[in-house]
C-alpha cells in the first residue's frame, strides 16, 4: 500500500492570545503541536501498514517550523516526510489548501490511501480532506473510527449522529479519522534522530508548478472581512462552603436554575 498522511501543525490553544494593540491573533508565539485528529490519522495508517505492508509519506503544508511535526511523525514510523512551504501559500482558505495538497499528492505519483484528520483545531472546518479527494477525483470514507483492508477493499466504520455505518470502498481513497478512533503511539527517539539526519524535503509553488495567484490568499474565494472579539461574560465566582450547599440549592431553585417539576 502506498499511503499518504496529511498532517497540520496547529498552535496550542492555551498559548494563543489576542494582541491588544494590533487587534490580531498572535499565533506565532504559540507552541506548535500536531493537530489532534491527525495523530489518529497517522496511527490508523501505521496499523494498516503493519497489517498489509506499505510505505507512509507525510505531507504537511505550513511554515518552516512545521518540520518539527513531520519529524515527530517520522519518529512514530512514517517513511518519508515532505513539507510544502512557501510564502505564497499563506492565508489559504480550504479551496486553495486542498488544491495545493492535491497538487503535492499528484506529484508523489501513485497512491492507494490518503489519511487525514477529521478536522483541525485552529480553523476546524474538516473540509480539506474531502476537498483533496474532489481535486483528485477519488472516493472518500469520512469520520472513521476503524479501518482495515480486506482483499482489495477498505472496510471503514463511520461514526455518524445516529449510529455506525460500515462501508466498503475501493482504493484509491481518502479516509478521514476521528479523534476517538485509536490511541496514538509514542515516537522513538532513534527514528526521530534518523529523520533529522535524513532531512525533510521541502517543496514550494515552483516544485508543484502552481501559479502564485492560484494559491494562498490570492487563490482563496473567501476572505475575512472583519473581526469581532466576543465579550467574555464576567461571572460572580461566589464562594460556597460545604455547609452552605442547602442555601445554594435554594437560591438555584429561586432563580429557576433548578426546576422542581412544579412549573
Amino acid at each position, binding site marked *: 500500500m502506498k499511503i499518504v498522511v496529511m498532517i497540520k501543525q496547529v498552535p496550542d*490553544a*492555551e498559548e*494563543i*492570545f*489576542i494582541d491588544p494593540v494590533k487587534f490580531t*491573533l498572535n499565533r506565532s508565539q504559540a507552541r506548535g503541536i500536531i493537530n489532534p485528529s491527525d495523530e489518529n490519522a497517522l496511527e490508523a495508517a501505521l496499523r494498516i501498514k503493519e497489517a498489509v505492508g506499505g510505505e507512509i509519506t507525510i505531507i504537511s503544508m505550513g511554515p518552516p517550523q512545521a518540520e518539527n511535526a513531520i519529524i515527530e511523525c517520522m519518529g512514530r514510523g512514517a517513511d518519508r516526510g515532505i513539507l510544502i512551504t512557501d510564502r505564497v501559500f499563506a492565508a489559504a*482558505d*480550504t479551496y486553495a489548501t486542498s*488544491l495545493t495538497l492535491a*497538487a503535492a499528492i499528484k506529484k508523489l505519483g501513485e497512491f492507494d490511501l490518503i489519511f487525514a484528520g477529521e478536522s483541525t*483545531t485552529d480553523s*476546524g*472546518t474538516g*473540509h480539506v480532506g*474531502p476537498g483533496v*479527494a*474532489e481535486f*483528485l*477525483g477519488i*472516493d472518500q470514507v*469520512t*469520520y472513521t473510527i476503524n479501518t482495515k483492508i480486506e482483499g482489495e*477493499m477498505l472496510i471503514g466504520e*463511520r461514526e455518524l*449522529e*445516529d449510529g455506525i*455505518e*460500515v*462501508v*466498503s*470502498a*475501493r482504493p484509491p481513497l481518502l479516509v478521514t479519522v476521528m*479523534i*476517538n478512533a485509536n490511541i496514538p503511539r509514542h515516537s522513538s527517539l532513534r527514528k526521530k534522530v534518523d529523520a533529522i539526519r535524513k532531512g525533510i524535503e521541502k517543496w514550494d509553488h515552483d516544485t508543484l508548478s*502552481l*501559479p502564485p*495567484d*492560484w494559491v494562498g490568499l490570492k*487563490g482563496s*474565494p*473567501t*476572505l475575512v472581512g*472583519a*473581526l469581532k*472579539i*466576543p465579550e467574555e461574560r464576567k*461571572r*460572580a*465566582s*461566589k464562594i*460556597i462552603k*460545604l455547609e452552605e*450547599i*442547602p442555601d*445554594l*440549592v435554594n437560591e*438555584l431553585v429561586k432563580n429557576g436554575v*433548578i426546576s*422542581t417539576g*412544579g412549573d
Partner: protein
Amino acid sequence: MELINCVPPENPNDYHDVFVYLEIRNEHITKGSLEMLGKGRELAEKLGDKVVGVAVGKGLKKIADEAASYGCQIFLGADVTDYSGFSSVAYTEFISSFVFEHKPSIFLISGSREGRDLVSRIAIRCKTGVAADCIELDADVQNRLLIAWRPSFGDKTIDQILCKKHRPQMITSRPGSYKLPQQVEKPDCDVRIKKVKMAKLAQDHKTLEFKKKDRLDLTSSKIIVSGGLGLGKPAGFKIVQELAEALGGEVGASRPVVDLGWIPYEHQVGQTGQTVRPHLYIAAGISGKIQHIVGMKASETIISINTDPEAPIVKYSDYFINADLYKAIPKLTEEIKKVTAQVAAPSS
C-alpha cells in the same frame, strides 16, 4: 476534476435564490436542515429571492411535502432509482448539477457529519468557497452579498467571512445554531423531482451495515454534571451520575478521564469533544484548562467544585464550591432530592 484555480463567474448577479440542502435521516428532513430552511427563507425574503430545497434519496414525494410545510418554495429532488446508501461522489454529482442548472446565489448546508462530508466537494466542483460553522447570517441587500460570521480559535474571535466574487456563497452552521421555523399555513412549493442512477458514480462504494445507536448528544442537554481527574478513580463517576440523575441531566467529562478509559468519549466536553451550552453546568474536579473551557463557557449557569481555590475554573464559575467533591457532590444530591421531593409530595 482538474487541478484548477477558483475562477469566479463573470457576472455574480446572474445568480439568484437560496439553496438549502435537505439531509434525510429516518425518512425525515433533519432538524439541522429545517433550521437552515428557516434561515434560508429569511434571507431569501430579504433579497427578494426564493428558498429552494435540494434533496437526494428514494422517492422524495414525502420529503417534498415536509419541506413545503416548513416554507420551502421550490423543491429540487434527485430520486435515486438504484439507491445503495450514501456516497459522497454520487451525492456531489447530483447536487452540483442542480447548482449548475439553477445558479443559486447562496447555498446553506447544515454542518452535520453528512453536510460536512459533502460541502467542500460541492464547493470545489462549483469553484466557490465555503464559510464553515457560521453562527450568524445576514444579507447585504444592495450588494447581494451574504454576510457570515464564524467563531475561530476556540471562540477567541468572531470573523466575518465574505465570498465576494464566487457563486454560490456557501456556508455551513452547526445543528442547533438557529430556531426551527414555524410550519406554514398554506404550503406553496414548486416540486421538481428527477430520476437519477448512482451505480456508475458510486462504483464499489457500498454501505454494508448500519448499526443504529444514538450518540449521546450533550449539545441539546439542559443540565450537565461533568467529572474530571479530581475524581481520582473511575468509580467516582458513580456520584456524578447520581447527581446528574437527581437533576434530570447528563454526565460530561474532561479529556484525561476519557483518555484513561473511565468514561466513553461521547461524554467529553471541550475543544476535542463536544461544545455544550446547557442551562446548568457543574464541573467537579476539573481544573478549567482552556481546552475544556471553550467547550462549556457558553453555559447559562456554571458551578464548579474544586479543592483548589486557585484553579482557573473559578473565574468561569457563577458559584464555586471550595470543597472535596466526595463531600460536596453527595450533599448537593441530597439537597436537590429534598427540594424535588417537596413538590412530588406536597405537605398538607
